[in-house]
């Protein structure tokens, strides 16, 4: 570790991994409710479990992004973070806010209160005071990292990362606007939800991936930067108007069906480019970095993002298809693999790379970490397949044959059982990952062929 303030990342990564554990356990519980619907129905209803599953995901991914920024910006800008105190204060605000959301929802505190009560809009459920806290934390973060970059060296990686993070924070402001008209509500809601994951988060993803490639493969910065710019251009070109694929059936004018179909079909391009980028860099690279697990996660991230976000997204993005599949398990299949591939794997890649550096260790537990990759990826791939089959059957029974929703759900039980099994494999993988990262053991893969394997 070259700069002392990179240590800030350690606290962020710790919170992120704790919430990751909460998220996957919540997911497992939700998966169990699918097969045994009365589980905890009085104490912790399904909609609350689902909220905890999705919100803890978002918060831990954000903590991971913030941590990654605090880790890589000092190295790129070649100077210490402007104010470590602000960075820790920011994390405290985020943690307090997260606890506030959990307590408010689990015990239904302050019902109907404008400031303190539940808001109830999917993914932006946070009570208003938490939203305000998020904005304050984001402002502190942006001030902190922007000052660091402005005073230091500016690279393509930090520029794109900052662009993505600024966009992320500014778009969140739409969460304060909640029009009474449901169509308008959804229209603005997607400014956050879509323009995050299919817009500015892709910039964050591309820049962190570029940083990892730079470090792991040793390819020239110039080459990495050229790829980065092309990926970012393709992401913004397709992603911004790609928002139209959410405007098919919410009461917006019909032309959105074509704008959405055409632009969002192109959203596969940046994900393909990221996958090509990662593999080409590894082939070109001459550096034999000892952290094989970080490389596996980076390549896995680019590949699974291409399939989850790119291919599975395209599967139901054309409005002629989406007319039938909208809101079925096809969406759930896409959502799971896309989030895991693009953003979960990205975070796990940067954790795997950064944690040994932050803790001043050799990259221990490589095999264990790689095993966790295959467990999680295998579990998630299986889950994606069974949900895709479930969604296909559901589309036919419900949307073509016109059967009742709950009758169809009964017939999908076998898929939900398999999904639960896939979830168990995933959770074991996730816990294994956390163990492999935190608990030191004397096992390092040797790149020296002359040395006997341990």
């Amino acid at each position, binding site marked *: 570790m070259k700069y002392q303030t990179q240590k800030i990342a350690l606290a962020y990564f710790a919170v992120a991994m704790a919430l990751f554990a909460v998220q996957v356990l919540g997911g497992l519980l939700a998966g169990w409710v699918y097969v045994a619907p009365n589980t905890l129905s009085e104490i912790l209803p399904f909609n609350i479990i689902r909220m905890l599953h999705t919100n803890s995901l978002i918060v831990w991914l954000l903590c991971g992004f913030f941590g990654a920024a605090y880790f890589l910006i000092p190295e790129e800008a070649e100077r210490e973070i402007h104010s470590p105190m602000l960075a820790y204060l920011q994390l405290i605000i985020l943690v307090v806010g997260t606890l506030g959301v959990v307590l408010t929802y689990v015990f239904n505190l302050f019902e109907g209160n404008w400031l303190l009560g539940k808001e109830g809009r999917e993914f932006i459920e946070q009570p208003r005071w938490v939203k305000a806290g998020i904005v304050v934390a984001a402002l502190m973060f942006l001030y902190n990292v922007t000052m660091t970059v402005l005073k230091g060296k500016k690279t393509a990686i930090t520029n794109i990362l900052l662009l993505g993070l600024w966009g992320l924070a500014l778009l969140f402001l739409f969460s304060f606007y909640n029009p009474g008209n449901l169509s308008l509500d959804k229209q603005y809601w997607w400014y956050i939800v879509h323009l995050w994951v299919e817009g500015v988060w892709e910039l964050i993803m591309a820049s962190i991936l570029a940083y990892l490639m730079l470090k792991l493969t040793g390819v020239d910065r110039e080459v990495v930067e*050229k790829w980065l710019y*092309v990926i970012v*251009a393709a992401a913004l070109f397709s992603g911004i108007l790609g928002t139209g694929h959410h405007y098919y059936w919410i009461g917006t*004018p019909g*032309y959105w069906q*074509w704008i959405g179909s*055409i632009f969002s079909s*192109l959203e596969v*391009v940046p994900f393909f480019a990221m996958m090509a980028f990662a593999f080409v860099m590894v082939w070109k690279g001459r550096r034999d970095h000892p952290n094989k697990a970080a490389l596996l996660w980076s390549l896995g991230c680019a590949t699974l993002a291409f399939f989850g976000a790119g291919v599975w997204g395209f599967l139901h993005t054309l409005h002629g298809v989406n007319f039938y599949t909208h809101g079925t398990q096809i969406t759930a299949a896409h959502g799971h693999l896309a989030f895991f591939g693009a953003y979960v794997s990205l975070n796990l890649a940067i954790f795997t790379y950064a944690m040994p550096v932050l803790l001043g260790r050799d990259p221990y537990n490589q095999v264990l970490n790689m095993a966790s990759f295959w467990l999680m990826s295998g579990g998630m791939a299986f889950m994606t397949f069974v949900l895709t089959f479930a969604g296909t059957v559901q589309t036919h029974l419900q949307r073509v044959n016109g059967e009742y929703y709950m009758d169809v759900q009964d017939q999908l039980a076998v898929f939900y059982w398999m999904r639960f099994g896939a979830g168990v494999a995933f959770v074991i993988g996730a816990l294994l990952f956390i163990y492999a990262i935190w608990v030191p053991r004397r096992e390092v893969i040797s790149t020296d062929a002359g040395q006997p394997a341990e």
Partner: protein
Amino acid sequence: MAEPMPRPGSVEELPGELLMWVLIVSELLVFGAGLAAFLGVRITDPSGFAEAQDHLHRTAAALNTVVLVTSGFLAARALHLREAGRRAASRLHLGGAMALGVVFLWIKGIEYADKAAQGIGFETHPFFMFYYLLTGFHAAHVAAGILILGLVAVWDEAHHIKVAGAFWHMVDLMWVLLFPVVYLLA
């Protein structure tokens, strides 16, 4: 030789700026998909499309084709003049290209106003939805192109003019594809 020759087939061979080519390819993909969708939907209702098409102002669109292609010619001349060191003449040509871009938008505006006066909107017929989408997207690019030409007329390095010219020719190309498909195809 001071600079190494780029590998044949590598991106370094592209004139201008790599990112501009990424944009051009992306734009052509979108317009191509839009035109393909238009032709696809047209199959479902040939007579309705033909009837709707008769409401368009073909002469104005033909005139606009001449205007835009001439504008493209002026932009191309501007680059040659700049490379020959004739900065003032180059700027004059860029100004001419911009002015013709404005003429294009003006004629387009008359067309739109005429449609609006007839009560024709996005929802009137699928033909008009595509008409407004395709020509509207194109017109937005003309407006952006005028702005870009203005910028390179001020910061007039030859490299800048080349990149702006590439964009402007793409706008030309789109119109040349769009005009026969939307206005003329019977």
